[in-house]
């Protein structure tokens, strides 16, 4: 994968982060390829991010997923050098972050990239409005201006009327809305989310996810979204990177991950996903057999499988799967049933 600064909002290449006293030395020798446990045993260092590369396209929602301790938070912090990377290159908006001077880096954080945190990180001694305006305050904007802007953002995230409350007077969900508003207030091009909703209960979490989707649609920011919740990843992500022990093991669309896990780890991850909700007809369509009738209902290849069931139940003829005008293949009831019946579909898919 090549970093292409012009087309990508974020480009990451060969990123390493090793925690510990002898990080540079570890990186220089072959120790860096050791398993995390072995590495820690041998050198006392932890390799949190190992040789990670990816691009994020402008306006994309890029999700990073992985088990606890897989290095997600470290990775996302390396992007703006909240954690100093041990090696590698990060480019944001065409600018090499690694080479930025402290002042330039601050500039980047102030205007281009902002972040939402798992534990909110609100300042308890400030009112909501001053929390939201914090980013503008450190930029040195006058009080009236930043309050006006903060009020605007507060209504965008649905917190009208809470401007003068203190964070601890709000529910968890509302607090995270404040966190979101704070990140939005500086009008960044890129927003980083580090498991923003995992401290919230499921119902509120769903609301907040909807909120992010809405915001993404309305303000169109590039987003890097960290989560360890697969359904959240599938719901939000245009592309998902799955991390394990510091490395990305697979990067692709939800469909690619569910349909073609790169290894057992990923397969394990996506096992419980109802495939019919994620995979499209493209994954199970097959070339029409000779003599098969081709006058059945016609559906686009990107149709999610579960949505094809209605069409299939209306007509006994195989569904014609099309991509534009071109016929990709057909799917008949037997195919659908075989897929829905579970286990062996994995083989079918791989075979396909």
């Amino acid at each position: 994968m090549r970093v292409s600064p012009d087309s990508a909002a974020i480009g990451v290449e060969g990123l390493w982060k090793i925690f510990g006293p002898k990080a540079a030395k570890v990186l220089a020798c072959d120790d860096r390829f050791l398993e995390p446990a072995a590495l820690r045993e041998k050198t006392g260092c932890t390799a949190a991010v190992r040789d990670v590369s990816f691009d994020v396209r402008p306006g994309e929602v890029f999700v990073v997923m992985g088990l606890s301790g897989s290095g997600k938070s470290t990775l996302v912090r390396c992007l703006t050098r909240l954690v100093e990377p041990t090696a590698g290159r990060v480019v944001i908006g065409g600018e090499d972050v690694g080479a930025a001077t402290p002042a330039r880096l601050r500039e980047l954080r102030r205007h281009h990239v902002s972040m939402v945190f798992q534990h909110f990180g609100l300042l308890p001694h400030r009112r909501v409005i001053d929390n939201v305006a914090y980013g503008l305050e450190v930029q040195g904007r006058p009080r009236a201006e930043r309050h006006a802007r903060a009020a605007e953002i507060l209504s965008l995230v649905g917190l009208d009327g809470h401007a003068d409350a203190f964070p601890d007077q709000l529910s968890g969900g509302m607090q995270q809305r404040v966190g979101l508003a704070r990140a939005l207030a500086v009008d960044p091009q890129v927003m980083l989310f580090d498991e923003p909703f995992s401290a919230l209960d499921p119902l509120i979490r769903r609301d907040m996810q909807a909120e992010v989707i809405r915001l993404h649609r309305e303000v169109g920011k590039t987003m890097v979204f960290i989560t360890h919740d697969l359904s959240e990843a599938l719901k939000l992500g245009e592309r998902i990177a799955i991390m394990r022990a510091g490395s990305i093991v697979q990067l692709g669309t939800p469909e690619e991950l569910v349909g073609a896990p790169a290894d057992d780890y990923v397969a394990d991850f996506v096992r419980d996903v109802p495939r019919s909700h994620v995979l499209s007809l493209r994954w199970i369509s097959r070339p029409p057999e000779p003599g098969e009738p081709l006058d059945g209902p016609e559906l686009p290849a990107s149709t999610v499988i579960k949505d094809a069931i209605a069409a299939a139940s209306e007509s006994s003829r195989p569904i014609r799967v099309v991509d534009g005008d071109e016929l990709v293949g057909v799917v008949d009831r037997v195919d659908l049933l075989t897929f829905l019946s579970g286990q062996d579909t994995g083989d079918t898919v791989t075979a396909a």
Partner: protein
Amino acid sequence: MSSTAVSTPSGLRVPGWLAPAGVAVLFAAAYLVFRGTGTLPHDSEAPQFAAVTELREWIDDHRNDNPVFLYFLNYVRLFVGGVYGLFHGALTALGWPGLIGVMGALAWLAGGWRIALPAVAGFCSFGVLGLWESSVETLALVAAAVLLSLAIGVPLGIWAGLSRRAHRAVTPVLDVMQIMPTFAYLAPLALFFHIGAPAGTIATMIYAIPPAIRITALAVQQVSPTAVEASASLGATRAQTLVKVHLPLARSTMALAVNQTIMMALSMVVIANLINAPGLGSDIILGLSRAQVGIMLPAGVAIVVMAMVLDRMTVSVARRGPHSRIGRAGLAGAGALAAAGVTLGLVLPHEWPEALTVDLVAEINDAVLWAETSWYGVTTFIKDTTSYLLLNPLESLFTTAPWWLVAAAVLLAAWRVSGVRPALTALGCLLAIALLGTWEHAMRTMTTVAVAVSVTLVIGLLLGVAAARSARWSAVQRPVLDAAQTMPAFVYLLPALALFGTTRFTAIFASIVYAVPPVVRLVEEGIRNVPGTVVEAAASAGSTPGQLLWKVQLPMARRAILLAANQGIVMTLAMVVVGGLVGAGALGYDVVLGFSQRTDFGMGFIAGVATVLLGVMLDRITQGADRRPSPHQRKVT
């Protein structure tokens, strides 16, 4: 948790007590054979002492022409004296109504009228006790010392809180400063800064700075890392993050730092008087040198009252929520109080009206005399029994044992409890004590400490266990302990002196009273922290409460108990040394003598150093609790 698995590393099935018992027998035998040889008797004319005395004479002669003094130390003295003078001048200028009004107003701002009322009453009591001027001096001294301590301690603390490296650099220094008995710095201070208010202020600062640094560092470290990260992620500079995030979020813990600094400063007030710091301390020392509790008690009460008022004020600042504001009513009340005070201060005379004082000196003296005469039999019996049965034999054991035997015992004990490095440090300290020529007196002091610590631990364990087992007992005991811990250490000397006169026992008694509260607290906490599931499991296996205590709770609270012992020793040592003023003899008395007789300055100075060494040694012997996981636990995990 099988202890046999540990004590028989070779796998031989030998009972666990055999090895220690064998060693004990070995030591006893060695003592019997070698007793009286290899002792290091005290020689008050040792060349080490003479050298320091000469150094002092030299410094005295060159105080006004040596550049170190001319361009540095004297300026420090000048500056600190200036700060004290400023405070003293300002507080005096306010007059008594003004000062009471202003303090009341500050208390109101700190915690509402509920704090203001006792503050006003407390400050009035200084006048009523006839101690207004001394109290103002003490307040000025404490204010100057606290202000300067914070000016140094808070930045250092912030730095240590932000930088791991700074933290690591500062910690050992603070450790030593905190186990250093207060008495020990007086001689060097007198040497460099002469006597008087500036030197007293500096002595107080040395004592008060460690908690300022430590707690500030803790406060900064405790600030939510996410909030800090959030600030950084929005492009805040380090300074912005410090001012807008760290400091506001650390505020309430930092108020505790101020609180502790004030408390420490107040408890130094008396001792600082030995180098002529003005204030209430001089009344106490006066009472001490006249053996009149009647003079000491009011001054002691005034110090305690001042401590309580300032404590409550700062604690209520610390307890305030992160975003509470002072209400308009509060501001108005405080303002009115301050204004009324200041106006009255302009009108009324500056001295506290004679008519409003209550002179209790004679009454208290009579009461003490009564107690002394009517309890004479009991107190003398206690004192004499302890002295003849415990103190004297132990003292002769320590002083007649060959030095190498004592050294070996210290090495072994420290090794067993705390590990190799602490053991070597302890040994080093002991050898240094010997080289300094203070061996015999150090052994005597150690005897007193040993007796005091043993009693402290017994009482502490009993009360701690009682509190841990009975919530009601704990509820009764807690406020008493709280109060006891706010009191300046010196106050405990008063009742002790009244009951036991000037003897070693007085120091022992005072140090027990001084050290028991924290020990009780640590023990109680240790037992309470034994996981409920373990206790439940043991109970469900049919243990009686006694079995539960002996077999589960006490062994599992071992760390806490060792820590309690460690704390107890450090505190006891500090107090025993102060006891030199009231007959405890040995190192403490040498220090006192060093101030009183020029020719003994060297001995006093070195005794101060020896006290520090003794403190470090005793700390290292018992520090296993703090820093090393116990061998048992290490085996299990």
